């Protein structure tokens, strides 16, 4: 029974532009201006999804962002498909393809629907209770649970769309383009303030813009006509920016807000190419006006979730705005006056309203009297107790309410209807206010939480129905009055408007409506998306959950993609009623950003792919690329890892590079090491305080290795520092520690030792460093710098000379991280590649071999040199590393000194650095592997492997490890238990190669 439910009367849909789209593979059409939801309803399609837990058929229930049911998968493309999109918010475009979610094999026949009949077995906390024991079974349950749960499908390929971020500053930000937002913006721009007006729809005017009835008049015009004229004057105001299709996601402190603007989702696919899809606005506003309106509440009664049960105000919008009838035979069920507005709209459009069920006894307002006059039947003091129909509501049962509203009396009456509008009153949208840190107060007479103007954290104001004003005269008068004070305005045009509207006379609210059946036999849904019912909330309370936050998590009420926009108030109300608490005392759950879901694309903006993080390349990078280096990421740096030749594996390359460096000559690009230039008359004293060893006596032209601790005594960084002149040093740090070391040193200089005259400058990028090592390194340097005296007397180990390579000034240091005779050349970075190539050329006859970080690690491990961050992890003291020799015991103080003899740091059973040799010399240990003494359970872990390599120079496997009391355990046999074998190892000295350091001067 597909028929067109479009009426030919309206100002908002362009019925000259037909748009075709597909839903679940079926070709349908709508018009320009439709949402997917309105187009589906025009095609008489209500059933759009299955519920999460019981797989009950669900239909479109609202017309906005609060929609719990009509969430669909849009598009089929594996990189552009988007799950969990609200059909009520997608603007229709040519070629739109949407699918129902959470149903299999199809929306009309869903196997999971069997859960509906099992529902007595699936109470709140079912999964928690059932799948806890035995714990080891979880792996088996998980597959089935994950398979049957879940909403849409994620795209499987990278997103091809463009996203953008933009900052904006304004005097006044107005959130919401309804009547109160428009008035606020007009007042703000009239004062000359730089104003931004944001609305999530493609049009302005909120719900007033289609309120076309002479009950609601402003200055003798129907309210929609008056508002339309106001909106027209907004065009071309230079100090006003209007953002359509933009939704504020987050309101942070200090008036910092995030808003997502949709730029192309409403366009036809072929018009989108090359355009930005979404822009995330980062807004800093001096003042914020929240005019986000209110959303209608449903009513909670048994089987209130059938397709065809729709919020009453949404029925009104579908007929007045989209010109779509949500049924041929509509009834309304309400506890307030707004359903009567819907009845008037339907009546005018020629849709028969069968009956209005009003739980109030007496509601003789202008609105209700007008409806009564039109001959629509009204049952006062009645309630709906149940509905019937599976994929669409067919009928509903009504009974009279008792005086106290706690039960039903009399006989059941059944009405046939294909659509039931429900209205349980209104909930102000206070999400953004509370996100910003504002506190709410509870208004008892109509059960709403509204912003407490005395507990507002920043310069902001809530106006209109988001501030709890629901009647047209209150909305306008209070908005104008409050904005006048907020913005400090003089007289204005809106102060004495002649406003005519209906006023609600009676209020009555029952959170859980009574039924003629015991509650256990009913299904009164609260959270439609997560399938939680009033029964679940009551069960949670019986089981001892008291806090609203706990009840929420236990029952999952309010935890769907709609974040409980429709369900939270009823859950609170039912808890308050059941426990005899005042709702105001109970408080609400926390509203957290985002207000509506954000795409990952909008969050990351342009920071994807190569823009995700900075990449740092050394000045010699191009040479490495040309020579086929494999690269390793070290922080943001790209460092050559190894240089494979002729299809070598990494292992083969590293073995070759390591042998070459020890047998002839190797060259390493060490430019990434941090370099800090230290100058000032107190530079020596400064170094004394930051390093563990003594510095005052270091002669000019000499280098010294230093260890830097944290104040807690743990090793933080290390490196060689060279005294260039009396008051001038250059410090080198680890690659990864460079920025932090500089910050730490700055911190001490500025805050603890401001009396020291010392200046720190980072020169990591300005200088490039290449290290040439091996027995032939001296000959190569001799070739590159023929006139430099390289004798050990003139240029001993741990000293430096200024020199020139082909007229390029350089600093040459004789320092070694490999244990070989080595030179480190530092040159200005823009000459580095040239100098590097000269060294390579000069070294050709000695088979100079470029090596990467892996060989560097291997060579230093052979010598037992630590790498901070690999062999240390912030829990090791110098003594733990067997480096007691570097502690300046005579020094009065240095960073971390006092901590070296705390009761904890002098324990002898601390983990300490040792060497390890495997009994089988070919067996290479895994870094991170655990060390144990025996395999008897419970197994005690004694430590772990920190570095491990196969040494080609020793022709055996070597490793460094930290082991409890390791210093005392030399010669001890330990076991490294692996998944499929146990490896026997022996604790040794940490130095494996050239223990006498003969090679340094070889």
């Amino acid at each position: 029974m597909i028929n067109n439910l479009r009426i030919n009367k309206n100002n908002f849909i362009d019925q000259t532009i037909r748009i075709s789209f597909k839903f679940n593979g079926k070709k349908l059409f709508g018009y320009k201006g439709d949402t997917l939801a309105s187009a589906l309803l025009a095609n008489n399609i209500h059933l759009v999804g299955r519920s999460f837990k019981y797989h009950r058929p669900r239909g479109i229930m609202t017309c906005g962002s609060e929609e719990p049911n009509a969430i669909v998968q849009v598009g089929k493309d594996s990189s552009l498909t988007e799950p969990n999109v609200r059909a009520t918010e997608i603007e229709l475009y040519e070629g739109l393809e949407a699918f129902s979610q959470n149903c299999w094999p199809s929306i009309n026949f869903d196997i999971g629907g069997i859960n509906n009949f099992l529902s007595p077995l699936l109470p709140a906390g079912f999964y928690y209770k059932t799948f806890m024991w035995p714990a080891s079974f979880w792996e088996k349950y998980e597959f089935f649970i994950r398979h049957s749960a879940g909403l849409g499908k994620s795209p499987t390929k990278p997103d091809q769309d463009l996203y953008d971020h933009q900052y904006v500053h304004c005097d006044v930000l107005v959130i919401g383009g309804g009547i109160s937002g428009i008035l606020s913006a007009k007042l703000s721009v009239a004062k000359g303030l730089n104003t931004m007006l944001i609305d999530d729809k493609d049009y302005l005017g909120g719900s007033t813009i289609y309120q076309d009835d002479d009950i609601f008049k402003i200055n003798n015009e129907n309210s929609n006509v008056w508002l339309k004229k106001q909106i027209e004057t907004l065009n071309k105001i230079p100090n006003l920016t209007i953002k359509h299709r933009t939704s504020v996601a987050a309101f942070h402190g200090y008036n910092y807000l995030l808003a997502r603007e949709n730029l192309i989702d409403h366009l036809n696919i072929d018009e989108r190419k090359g355009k930005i899809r979404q822009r995330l606005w980062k807004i800093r506003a001096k003042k914020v006006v929240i005019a986000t309106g209110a959303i209608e509440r449903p009513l909670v009664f048994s089987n209130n979730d059938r397709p065809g049960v729709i919020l009453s105000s949404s029925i009104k919008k579908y007929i007045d705005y989209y010109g779509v009838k949500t049924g041929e035979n509509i009834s309304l069920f309400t506890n307030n006056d707004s359903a009567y507005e819907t009845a008037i709209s339907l009546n005018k459009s020629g849709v028969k309203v069968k009956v209005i069920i009003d739980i109030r006894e007496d509601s003789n307002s202008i609105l209700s009297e007008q409806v009564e006059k039109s001959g629509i039947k009204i049952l006062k003091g009645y309630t709906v107790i149940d509905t019937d129909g599976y994929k669409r509501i067919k009928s509903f049962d009504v009974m009279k309410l008792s005086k106290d509203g706690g039960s039903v009396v009399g006989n059941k009456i059944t009405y046939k209807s294909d659509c039931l509008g429900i209205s349980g009153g209104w909930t102000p949208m206070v999400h953004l206010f509370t996100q910003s840190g504002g506190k709410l107060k509870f208004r008892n007479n109509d059960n709403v939480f509204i912003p407490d103007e005395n507990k507002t954290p920043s310069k902001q104001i809530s106006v209109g129905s988001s501030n709890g004003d629901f009647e047209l005269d209150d909305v306008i008068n209070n908005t104008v009055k409050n904005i006048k004070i907020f913005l400090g305005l003089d007289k204005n045009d809106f102060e004495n408007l002649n406003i005519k509207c209906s006023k609600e006379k009676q209020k009555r609210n029952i959170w859980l409506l009574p039924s003629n059946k015991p509650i256990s036999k009913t299904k009164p849904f609260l959270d439609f998306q997560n399938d939680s019912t009033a029964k679940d909330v009551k069960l949670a309370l019986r089981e001892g959950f008291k806090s609203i936050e706990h009840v929420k998590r236990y029952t999952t009420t309010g935890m769907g993609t709609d974040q409980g926009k429709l369900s939270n108030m009823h859950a609170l109300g039912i808890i308050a009623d059941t426990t005899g608490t005042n709702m105001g005392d109970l408080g609400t759950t926390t509203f957290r950003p985002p207000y509506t879901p954000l795409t990952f694309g909008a969050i990351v903006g342009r920071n994807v792919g190569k823009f995700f993080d900075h990449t740092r390349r050394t000045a010699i990078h191009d040479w490495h690329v040309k020579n086929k280096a494999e690269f390793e990421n070290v922080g943001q740096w790209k460092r050559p890892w190894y240089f494979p030749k002729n299809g070598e594996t990494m292992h083969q390359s590293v073995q070759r590079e390591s042998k070459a460096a020890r047998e002839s000559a190797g060259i390493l690009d060490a430019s990434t090491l941090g370099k800090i230039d230290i100058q000032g008359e107190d530079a020596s004293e400064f170094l004394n305080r930051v390093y563990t060893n003594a510095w005052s006596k270091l002669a000019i032209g000499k280098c010294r290795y230093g260890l830097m601790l944290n104040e807690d005594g743990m090793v933080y960084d290390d490196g060689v520092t060279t005294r260039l002149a009396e008051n001038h040093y250059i410090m080198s740090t680890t690659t990864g520690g460079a920025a932090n070391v500089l910050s730490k040193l700055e911190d001490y200089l500025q805050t603890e030792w401001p009396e020291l005259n010392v200046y720190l400058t980072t020169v990591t990028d300005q200088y490039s460093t290449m290290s040439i090592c091996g027995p032939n390194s001296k000959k190569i340097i001799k070739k590159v710098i023929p006139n430099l005296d390289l004798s050990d007397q003139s240029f001993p180990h741990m000293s430096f000379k200024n020199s020139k390579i082909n007229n390029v000034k350089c600093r040459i240091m004789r320092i070694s991280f490999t244990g070989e005779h080595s030179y480190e050349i530092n040159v200005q970075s823009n000459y580095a590649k040239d100098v590097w190539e000269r060294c390579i050329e000069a070294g050709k006859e000695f088979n100079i071999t470029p090596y990467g970080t892996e060989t560097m690690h291997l060579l230093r491990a052979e010598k037992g040199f630590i790498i901070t961050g690999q062999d240390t992890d912030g829990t090791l003291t110098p003594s733990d590393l067997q480096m007691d020799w570097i502690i300046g015991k005579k020094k009065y103080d240095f960073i971390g000194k006092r901590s070296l003899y705390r009761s904890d740091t002098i324990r002898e059973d601390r983990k300490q650095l040792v060497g390890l040799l495997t009994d089988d010399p070919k067996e290479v240990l895994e870094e991170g592997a655990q060390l144990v003494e025996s395999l008897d359970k419970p197994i005690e872990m004694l430590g772990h492997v920190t570095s491990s390599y196969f040494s080609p120079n020793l022709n055996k496997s070597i490793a460094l490890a930290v082991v409890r009391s390791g210093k005392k355990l030399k010669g001890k046999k330990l076991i490294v238990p692996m998944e499929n074998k146990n490896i026997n190892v022996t604790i040794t000295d940490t130095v494996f190669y050239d223990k006498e350091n003969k090679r340094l001067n070889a």
Partner: protein
Amino acid sequence: MFIINCPYCGERDQSEFSCGGEAHIERPKQPTELSDDQWAEYLFMRKNIKGIQFERWNHIHGCRKWFNVVRDTSNDKIHAVYKMGERPPIK
């Protein structure tokens, strides 16, 4: 994301700064003369107040200067900003 009034640069976004924890904890002049407990007091003990807290901040992506901030941790309101070495303008 709050706005911090750097005493050297003026008002800037929080993202330019890093927080260095509680302020006015002076490094002892003679650490070697302290007992384990006294040293531990300096090293480890920090307040975690809900309310007015004195903090060190560094304009790390700006002038790189350290300074002090008086912040109410319950609502991020900044009551005062002052340079290193200066006394807190409020108690």
